[in-house]
Each structure stands twice: as structure tokens, then as C-alpha cells.
């Protein structure tokens, strides 16, 4: 047994020496990799079905950044040491890598995610554990692609498609007649939501719905002298952020939406119907229905800072 080990050691020393000699005589027409990476790209080369080599154009393969582990561990930084696989790969009847991310022999979601979280646990990822996507059992690689140059989840031209491939309801909402310009490429899902676990409702980056809205609509923040209480509380009480069949992304047609909370004497309680439409002559029609209906007069529905703006008219 000792003799066999010695023999192995001698062979190893010989082969290592040979490999160093060969490495010194590097061919400039060839790319030289560190040994632990070279062992992988020997099989996973440019002819590979999956574009493995593209990873060398991504931040994950930068050797000078110690956070990647590329210099120290190479592919093993994410895939595990996988010595058995190195000896005899799966397609030759051997083993799969220890942490396979795709395919029939992929590792469990927890193990795959741990490979990513061992580096990506801070900053915007702090709230990943227990977040909606984590609890649903999503793996990081269900959305992200690590080897290709372009990760669809990070590509502004592909991200919405990537999100709506699961979120079908939101996909339909973006096509409603009144919607935020997601379909136009002016807004991304991640402008408002943190898919890795947001601290606000619906995984918003901001801690409240209104803080999220104010990041683009700061003019509506106030505080105002004359507040409109539901507006101060939650924009989504009246607006559907992804899209609506009604103008200004309202949840319902005005003036009826207003009448769901305002039912005072005279005009607020009037039964508004087709009787308020334009007649054969001008002027005619109800000023609570035509044009901007209630907002023909109550123009400051988000709050007024005018001392006479009691009814949101100033």
C-alpha cells in the first residue's frame, strides 16, 4: 500500500513537472488558464452545448477580485470541488458536479441558492430569506443566467419578459389602456419591486406604497394643509399601479369612484346617469359627469396647500 502511494506520488511529481514545463512553453495562440480552471474547460470548451466560456466575459470569472473565488477555486467556487466528476464525468458514466444548477441531476434549490448566497447575501439581498420568491422555492438560476454575457433578469430589454413569464396577471395589466410605461420600456419591474425580498408591501423597495410612488411623484408628497386622507394613506386605494381600464390608472370610473366615499347633500349624492349626457343643444349635460367630472372643480384631489383649498378646489 505504501509502495503504491509512493508510485502515485512519483508519477504525480513527474506529471506536475511536465505540466509546468508545458505551461512555460505556452502557445500564444492559445488561452492559458489556471490549472484548476483548465481542468474544467478541457471538456467544457467552446464547442460545449451550454456557453460555458462566456463566463470569462462576466464579473464572476475575474481572477483579481477575491470575492469571486475564481482565482482560488475557479469553477469549484460555485460548483463545489467535484473531484469525482473531474475523474470521470457524468456523461462517461461517472459523477455529476457536486452543485449542478440545471438538468435532471441538479442540486436541491437550497444548495444551489446557497452557492449564490455565500457571496450575494448583503445589500439588496439581505431580505431574501423568507421572501416570497424564496418561500415559493425559487432558485436564483430560475431567473438569472450566470455563464452567458447577458443575464435576462438584469438586461433592461429582457427583464419584464422574464418577470411576466410567471406573473401573467401583471403582464395583462400592462396592456390595459391606462398603464405605467412598462410596455414602452420606460419602467422596469425592479424600479419599484425587489424580487429578492422587498421591505414594503408586494416586495417594494420602499417601506410603504406611498414612499415608492413619491420617488417619481414627489410633488404629491406634501404634507398639505388640506389632506385627502386616503391619498395620504395609500395611493393604491384609488389607483391600480400596473394598469387600469380607467383613466389615470384609477380603480374605477369617476365620478362613481368619488361617490363611494362622498355622499353629501345635493350634488355629491346625485344619481348620475345617461340623463347627464349632452343633449341636443348647448350648453347641456352634467358638470359632475362630462369633461373631468368631479375634477372639473375639485382639482387638488391629492391635497391642497392653499388656505382656501378646503374642498380641494384651490
Amino acid at each position, binding site marked *: 500500500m505504501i509502495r*503504491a502511494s509512493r508510485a*502515485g*506520488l512519483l*508519477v*504525480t511529481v513527474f*506529471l*506536475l513537472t511536465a*505540466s509546468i514545463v508545458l505551461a512555460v512553453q505556452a502557445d*500564444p*495562440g492559445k*488561452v492559458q488558464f489556471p490549472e484548476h480552471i483548465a481542468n474544467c*474547460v*478541457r471538456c467544457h470548451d*467552446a464547442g460545449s452545448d451550454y*456557453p460555458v*466560456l462566456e463566463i*470569462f*466575459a462576466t464579473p464572476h470569472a*475575474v*481572477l*483579481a*477580485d477575491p470575492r469571486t473565488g475564481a482565482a482560488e477555486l475557479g469553477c469549484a467556487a460555485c460548483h463545489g470541488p467535484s473531484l469525482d466528476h473531474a*475523474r470521470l464525468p457524468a456523461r462517461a458514466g461517472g459523477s455529476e458536479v457536486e452543485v449542478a444548477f440545471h438538468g435532471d441531476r441538479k442540486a436541491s434549490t437550497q444548495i444551489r441558492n446557497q452557492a449564490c448566497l455565500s457571496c450575494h*447575501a*448583503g445589500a439588496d439581498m439581505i431580505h431574501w*430569506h423568507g421572501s416570497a420568491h*424564496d*418561500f415559493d422555492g425559487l432558485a436564483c438560476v430560475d431567473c438569472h443566467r450566470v455563464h452567458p*454575457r447577458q443575464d435576462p433578469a438584469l438586461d433592461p430589454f429582457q427583464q419584464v419578459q422574464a418577470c411576466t413569464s410567471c406573473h401573467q*396577471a401583471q403582464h395583462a395589466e400592462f*396592456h*390595459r*389602456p391606462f398603464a405605467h410605461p412598462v410596455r414602452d420600456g*420606460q419602467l422596469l419591474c425592479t424600479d419599484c419591486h425587489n424580487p429578492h425580498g422587498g*421591505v414594503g408591501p408586494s416586495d417594494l423597495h420602499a*417601506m410603504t406604497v406611498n414612499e415608492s410612488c413619491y420617488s417619481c411623484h414627489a410633488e404629491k408628497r*406634501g404634507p*398639505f*394643509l388640506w389632506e385627502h*386622507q386616503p391619498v395620504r*394613506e395609500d395611493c393604491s*386605494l384609488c389607483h391600480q399601479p400596473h394598469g387600469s*381600464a380607467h383613466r389615470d390608472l384609477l380603480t374605477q*370610473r369617476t365620478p362613481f369612484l368619488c361617490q363611494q*366615499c362622498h355622499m353629501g*347633500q345635493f350634488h355629491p349624492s346625485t*344619481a348620475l*346617469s345617461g*340623463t347627464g*349626457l349632452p343633449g341636443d343643444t348647448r*350648453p347641456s*349635460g352634467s358638470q359632475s359627469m362630462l*369633461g*373631468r367630472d368631479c375634477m*372639473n*372643480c375639485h382639482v*387638488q384631489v391629492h391635497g391642497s*396647500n*392653499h388656505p*382656501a383649498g378646503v374642498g380641494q378646489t384651490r
Partner: protein
Amino acid sequence: MTTQGFQTFTMAGALLLSTSVAAIEREAFDQLTSAENHVEIGLGWVSEDSARFGRYNALYDDGLFLVLGLDYLVQPRFDDPAPLRVEVTARDLGLGNRHLLVRSGRQGRFGLEADYRERRARRGDGLVTVYDSQNRASLRLPEDWQAAPGTAGMNLQLPVLHEFSLVQRRRQGRVAASVNPAERWQVSAQARQEDRDGTHLLAGLFGNTGGNPRAAFLPVPVDYRTRLVDLNLDYNDRRRQFRLAYHGSLFTNNEPGLAFENPFSTIGGWAPGSGFPDGRGELALPPDNQFHQLSLASGWQFSPNLRLVGQVASGRMTQNEAFLPYTANPLLAQSIVQPLPADSLDGRIDTTSVHLRLSGRQSSQLSWNASYRLDDRNNRTELREWVYIGGDSQLQDAGPASSRRRYNLPQDYRHQRLRLDGQWRIDERTRLASAIQRSRTERSLSARDQVDESLLELSVRHRASQRLQLGAQALWADRDGSEYDGAAGFLASHDSGYTDTLAGQWANIPSLRMYHLADRRRQRLALSAGLTPHEHWSLGLEAAHASDDYRNTVIGLTESQQQSLSGTLTWAPARNLSAHLFYTWERLSSDQSGFSFRGGPNRPVDLANPERAWEVDHRDRIDTLGAGLERRLLDGRLQVQLDWVKARARARQDVSSGSALSTAPLPTVRNDLDSIMLRASYRLSEPLSLHLRYWFERFSSDDWALDQVGPDQLANIILPGESSPDYRVHVASVSLRYRFD
């Protein structure tokens, strides 16, 4: 040889082979990994003007536009000892929506980023106003303006009216930097400034009750600046992470108010001098305001299976814009005996937000979450007494029983939520999840001080086979709360000298329940299926039914429902070919009830008459059908992409009432969208490719509030002449893209 010896031998062999054989041809490697730099130049054409089509893509004008873009990347080699990366991206430089991004950094050491983005949104064309908008802050009527008590006596035709467009431009500059001063630490900062200018639309009102309003729509100047600052300090190791952050948002408006002359002559109920030619009014435009927030987020891994994450934030919103006077009319201002109680609001809301979540994984079968959320907004604005002048049309009435003696309502809000989630993996195929949640919302100066909600959720997912996954989710929630006092806000905002004179002492009918405060029972059931009948085909189906039953509401929103069906079919037979088809059917319905009543001596009579009740049934239906195709041909030289969408939205309101009222049907509101986009690129040579794009979009709509409703349609309001949009726009572009090193 022993196993260990063999392993040593094979490892050594592998190492040898790795160095001797694994060196990859540089040319092939570079092709896969070298930076792809492009410059794109070309011409595009838009067939017709359309504000709605171009509201977000800046293609609102007909004619030619320039296609100009750049992708430039200096990408270091993976083994570069000092990998400095530089990236320049420019998009849509020839359009009103242009974006320029410059990014640089040495990975693991520092990063710098700067970008400029411009967005133009056109929201309306051909609108009209009676005002000459040369002086944007003070709108004047034409010299020869002929006033009248209503629109019937006015000349509301061009050229008396002035035309204007609603165009807004946002210009945003941003700089960001990050430094890694030590392993596991990062400091990052970002500053953003957005200037927004243009015009939007509001009405300028005169009048002091619902019985005597007169209004005219105005082009309102927009001249906003928002500055955002974010500073982060991050620490990250395997077991602990934290982020200390500051967020600041400063909003300024260079147009604090908009003054305008009164185009109507003085009418009954208005004080002398309120109408033309002396009458003038003023709107307060959005006040300067600030928000500052400090937050601490952290994650702690107590054990491999137990983790706490949380964020605590403390913020402050402030606003102290100088007040405009009670009236812009000097004649009415002479009546003021009780001046403004303060020069500015000195408004302040302190916010406290907490989000904590403890996550555990007892075994591979069981995991759970326990979370707590707090959203507290303490409104520290002083409650003061105001004696306002209604709509620049009356003298100040500071009498003890005046309805104009009012108090602002700085309302507090506090929402707390406790939630427990559990998940059991029953076997390899089946997963069961449930959640229980309890929330409490407290409000001051509100119709309901406290609202509580309990929620239960149950879901199951089952993988019936390798090709079929099924899911079901059910939700039930019930909301109730403290006694509902609909008059609370009314009484708090009026002086008792006035409310003591009122019968009933309420404004809204007492049986009204505002929907965000009302008792509510919510139910939702959703079913889903994912089918992969063949490795090239996949089908996703979803069906959902949700209902909100406002079970104790007599007046107000009584019920709402939402049903939807959706399906997505995907076909991907090869890497160079994929297609998808999707369809969604949505039905949103809600019922609301009202009660029409007059004031004064008629009020008790009306309230006793059940035939004055009315109802509105809302029925919205939205159908969205779409398809897409991606194809690569000629060995990848030709790429074709096709997207098609057809969306139909119908919104119907059916109004019915008791016999004491008269109602008539309303037409259906209709919005139809058809859009098709075809993109093709052909590689002419290694560095040069030709890009063609064709886009056709058709939109048509009917809206009874806007169609055929001219400036003189209403007796008391001069409208802007908006109409529901209809357009058919073709866009075509051709460009050359040159790839360079």
C-alpha cells in the same frame, strides 16, 4: 494500486492533460468573450401625429427621426491583475427619450456611474383655453373678452380660444459611486436630479358652494426639480449582513401658484367684484417639500436553519412653503378680519417603519416564517383655525356660526401586521403552504379609529408527473373595527358654533361606509396548471376568482369581484426558433349604492323616501391576446422577431334608481388596441449588420365624458375640448449597426 493511489494518479493525469490540452484557441475564446462594441445609425419615420401613441416613446410627431445608439465596452481580460472596466451606452439619441450611461470601475475595488436620461411625454394636443398663456404664472383673458354668467353667453370658438398641448419633459442626471475599502465592506453613494417642465391641465374655479361654481380649464405650468440622495454603508459576511442607509428627497417647484382672471360675470351668491373684470383667483401648486430617512437593515444567520432579517427606518416629511393669501382678489381681501394663522404650514410627518422576519427550516419538509411590520406616520403638523374665502367669490365670514371657520386635520396613521407562514413538503411531489395574518390599522380624526383584519391563506402545489404541475390557492380575510362614526372628520374640521346649528351634525349620509374603512370579507380562489406535453411545448393556465363583500355597507361600495382566466403557450423546438401565444380574460365588477338627497328643509323629507335610492353596477371586461415569434435563419445571420397584441377593454356602468329619481343608460366606454411589431436584423459582414423595424399600432376609444364635448358643452365650465384618442400609426426604421473592437 490502492484506491487512494489511483485517485492521485488520475488527478495528476488530469492536471497534466488540463495544461497540455485545455489551452483553448484564443480566436475562439475571444469570439465568445470579447467586448461587443456597436454603433448604430439610421433613419426612422412616423406616419402621423399622435399624442397618445407617443406619450412615452417620444414618437408623437409625424416625419423622420434619427436612429442613433452606441454600445462601447472596455472589458478587461478575466486574468487582468487590475481589471478596469469602462462602459458607455447611448440609446435613442435621436428621440426625445434619450439615455446616456457611462460606467466604470475596478471590480472589487470601486465603481463609478453617471447617466443622463430624458423623457418627453405628450398627453394631449389641440386643447383650448380662454387664457393667453404668455405669462405662465398669471393667466390673463383677451383684451376684448366678453364675460357672461355662463358659457351660453360666451364666444368659445377659435380664434378667441388659445390652443395648447400638454407636453412634459423629464431630464434626469445621476451620479453614483461605490468603494470597497476593505474585504466585506462597501460604501456607496448616489445623487440624482430630475428637472420636470411643461404643462398640465387643471380647472380654475370660482364659487363658494356646490350651487354656484364656475370654472375654466387652464394650462398649468410645471417647473419641478427633485433631488434624491442615497448613501449606503454595507457589511457582508456569511452569517451577518447589515446596511446603514440614508435617503433624502428634496422637491422644489419654481411655480408656487397660478393666478387667473375670472371669465364669468358676477352671479348670485358671489360677492360684488368677484366676477369679470375685477375677479381673479389663484391655485396653489405643489409645495416644496422634503423627506429624509435613516434606515438600518440587517440579516443574522443564527444557525444553518434559522435566520432573522429586518429593517428599521425613521423618516421625516416636511413642508413649509409660504401660503398664498385667502384670496387673490384685492376687493375681497379687504373683508378679511381674521388673517391667516401662520405664514406657512410648517408641516411635518414623522415616519417609523419596521419590518422583521424570522425564517426557520426545521427540516427539508418544514419551513416557516414569522414576520412583523409597522408603518407609523405621526403627523406633527399643528392643528389651526382657518376662516377661508371660498373660491375667490365671497367676503370673509368670521362669525361664530360660520361654516367657513375650519380646522385642518393632521391625521395620524399606524398599521401593524403579524404574519406566520408555514410550508410542508408532504412528499417529493406535493407542497402545502398556509399563512395566518392579523393586522390592525389605527387612524386619528377619522370615521373609524381602529380597523382589524384577520387573514388565512392556504395553497397546495402538486407535481402530478414530469409533465404536469398543478396548484391551488385560497384566501379568506375578514375586516372589522371600532364603531363607525362618519361625522367624526366633519365635526373635527368645523367649529362647533356652526355644527351646533345643524340638524344631525353630519355631512355624508350616516349609512355611508368608506370602502377603505368598512367591514369587509375578502375571498380569493386561484387555480393553476403547468403542462409540458412535449419537450418543445409548454402551457401555463391560471384561473382566479376574488371577491370583496362589504357586508355591512348600505351606502357606498357594497361588493366587488374580479375573475380572470389566462393561458400562455410556448413552443421552442430549437435554439433558433421560439414562439409564444397568450390570452387573458378579465372581468372586474362592482356594485355601489347611493341615496340622493337635498339640503335644508327638504333633507328630512328626502331621507324618508326610499325611492331616492340608486345603484350603479360596474362591469369591466378586458381581453388581451398576443403572440410572439423569434427566429434565426441563415446560420444566425438573419434574426427575425415578431410581437403582436390585441387588447379590448369595455367598461359599463348600469345605473338604476327608485321612482323618485330619473336615470338613463350610459354608453359603454371602449378602448381597443392593436399592435404589431416586426424586427429583423441581417449580418451583412462580420462587423456590419442591417436592422429593420416596423411597428403598426391602432387605438380607438369611446368615452362619453369626452367625445363631442366641446369647450361650451357645459353651462358653467369652460372645458378644454379633450377627446378620447383614436390613432393609426405606422413606424418604420432602418439602421446600420457596426461592430468594432
